[in-house]
């Protein structure tokens, strides 16, 4: 991977030159057939290790291919695409690795959800050597640099994953410059000890760093954490910057509590992606991302008509589902193919002339 500006520029020149020989394709289109990681056109990664974390969760260690620039911040998430039944399916997961450790590998930790289609495949179905697709890291759920003096992490279940990346990063920095951790309280909920992700490592970190205080709320035995009594596990929570990640109910409660105290700016939330199946009835608000226009539509109006009615310049062709001229990327939400009833979700490209909104959705046009 090019590190310096000169090397980057030289690589660019080389790529442009090679592309003249491979026109209209890119050299990557040929090279990835030799080694799947040799492509910067689509980010790819090779699974190098699948580590079982709990009965239902596993960490996937991934070696990213060309085009991965290595920049991410602890707490960010990454898109991962996996081919099942010939189709690429995409989900986002928090990175659990630390960007500080410079071994060129990244890791995500996936918990198999009972209803989750892809999570089950990722936890149980991926052998080392499998090639996955990657989307560049993003997300605002990150610590400032330097971190605040007093921090509260409020997590539940797999909500620990972005926080684990933060803790590993802080730990690695301490090891590098001999400093200590800030004053951190981690309040984490899980049904039993067996369900606590990274339990041994968390305890090791707490033993090593005087600044890290760990409270495990094992809900099978202790019941759910009542946020109204948060002061019992973290007396000075109102004076801390808080990062919270977990199920929607917990985050909603936290949001209400912090708001009631008038300290919303001290609370940083990470919500997992919206519940697509819970989108309820058909129809919804269609947002056209580039123009910022929106349209409220029923479940029978095509996205193409909705866009045109809203004054968006929509690409179109046959308007009967055969020519693909109208295909647009779906950035968020879900749509339904009016012919087959098949639902398409964010990350897919949809034919707008035969698709309708299935809940709120965002089109990249």
């Amino acid at each position: 991977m090019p590190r310096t500006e000169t090397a980057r520029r030289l690589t660019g020149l080389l790529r442009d030159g090679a592309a003249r020989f491979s026109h209209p394709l890119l050299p990557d289109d040929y090279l990835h057939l030799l080694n799947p990681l040799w492509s910067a056109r689509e980010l790819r990664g090779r699974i190098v290790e699948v580590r079982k974390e709990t009965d239902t969760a596993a960490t996937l260690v991934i070696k990213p291919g060309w085009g991965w620039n290595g920049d991410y911040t602890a707490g960010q998430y990454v898109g991962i695409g996996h081919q099942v039944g010939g189709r690429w399916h995409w989900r986002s997961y928090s990175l659990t690795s630390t960007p500080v450790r410079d071994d060129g590998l990244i890791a995500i930790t996936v918990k198999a959800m009972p209803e989750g289609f892809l999570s089950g495949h990722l936890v149980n179905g991926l052998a080392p050597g499998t090639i996955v697709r990657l989307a560049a890291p993003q997300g605002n759920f990150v610590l400032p640099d330097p971190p605040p003096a007093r921090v509260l992490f409020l997590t539940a279940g797999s909500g620990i994953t972005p926080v684990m990346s933060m803790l590993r990063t802080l730990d690695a920095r301490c090891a590098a410059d001999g400093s200590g951790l800030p004053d951190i309280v981690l309040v984490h909920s899980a049904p039993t000890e067996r369900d606590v992700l990274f339990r041994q490592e968390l305890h090791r970190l707490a033993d090593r760093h005087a600044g890290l205080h760990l409270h495990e709320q094992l809900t099978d035995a202790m019941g759910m954490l009542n946020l109204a009594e948060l002061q019992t596990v973290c007396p000075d929570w109102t004076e801390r910057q808080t990062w919270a990640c977990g199920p929607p109910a917990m985050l909603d409660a936290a949001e209400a509590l912090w708001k009631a105290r008038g300290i919303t700016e001290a609370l940083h939330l990470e919500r997992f992606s919206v519940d697509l199946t819970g989108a309820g009835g058909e129809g919804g608000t269609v947002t056209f991302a580039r123009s910022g226009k929106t349209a409220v539509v029923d479940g029978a109006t095509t996205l193409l008509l909705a866009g045109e009615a809203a004054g968006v310049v929509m690409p179109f062709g046959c308007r009967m589902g055969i020519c693909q001229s109208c295909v647009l990327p779906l950035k968020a939400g879900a749509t339904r193919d009016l012919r087959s009833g098949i639902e398409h979700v964010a990350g897919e490209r949809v034919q707008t002339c035969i698709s309708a909104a299935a809940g709120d959705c965002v089109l990249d046009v």
Partner: protein
Amino acid sequence: MAISDIKAYAHLTPADVEALGKELDALRREIEESRGEKDAAYIRKVIKLQRGLEYAGRATLFASLFPPAWVAGTAMLSLSKIIENMEIGHNVIHGQWDWMNDPEIHSSTWEWDNAATAESWKHSHNVVHHTWTNIVGKDRDVGYGVLRITRDYKWKPKNLGQPVIYALLALMFEYGIAFHDIDVSAVKKGRKTKETATRQLKAMGRKIRKQVTKDYLLWPALTGPAFLGTVSANFTANVVRNVWSNAVIFCGHFPDGAEKFTLAEYESETPAEWYLRQMLGSANFNGGKLLTFMAGNLNHQIEHHIFPDLPSNRYAEIAVRVREICDRYEIPYTTGHFLVQYAQTIRTMLKLSLPDSMLTATSDDAPETASEKKWELRERALAA
């Protein structure tokens, strides 16, 4: 005049046609639901084979001063260009593989090794040709604006030059297709702005420049002393691809039995009648696995026109079902040996270079075009 009443021509009641449409809809859903890993593996394998062949060909041409190497390199490159345009490019741009949700094999991102840009091809082919298939005056692929391929078009003196024009078109087919979409006549008639045409011409020019530089300058230069050998090999491969793709495409709608239609037919058309028009307007040719593959599965032109966006590797099994449906509804299913089908298109092209006064049949009862009046004419002839 071409077919104005498709039901009368096919001797079907409206209820028959609707039932036919339902059967084809069901067949479509069945194939859609069964698309999976095997199909995805197929297209990946084809892409791998094609790119491998291309680079093996280009590598062999480093030795193109040695004649057998020239022949081998040219053959591999020709095969690769044919596969790239037909089984891969044409079909990917149709959206046949969009269901995989793979941005690298997707109609909205694909670009092919052809003078026409994917964007303009999507318009001239996917939209114009596939929507208005064989409608005289609407589908510009009926003769490509330069050939009189049905006597529904009035004879003009320039048609006398048709044999020469056709030979040139076949040799330079990719350029013919690229210019075809610019549609200069539409600009003249005011149906298209000059700005649009200029923008398209510029995009086409940029692409052609890159294509020509690649095949006739960069790769030859890379092969050093074999420069001229590589130029002639690349030229030959491009011409072989042009001639072959032209032959396959001409066999799709110009053999006898591939009917033409009037705008009146289109204007009152139901979705089921659209299917029927695609079936009556297209022609297949028989082929084993190799011929089918090299034709990009377009020997299943009928199936392709009913379901232009279903994966090409499934057309063979769809064909068995469509043929059975045609038999049941007593709809003609036009097919034959490749050489016979191609000979018919050449014959029509040659014959129609002559004025109608020298031809016997009319556009109601000719080999290449007929109408619902054909039955009446036959009965009258029998009675006489």
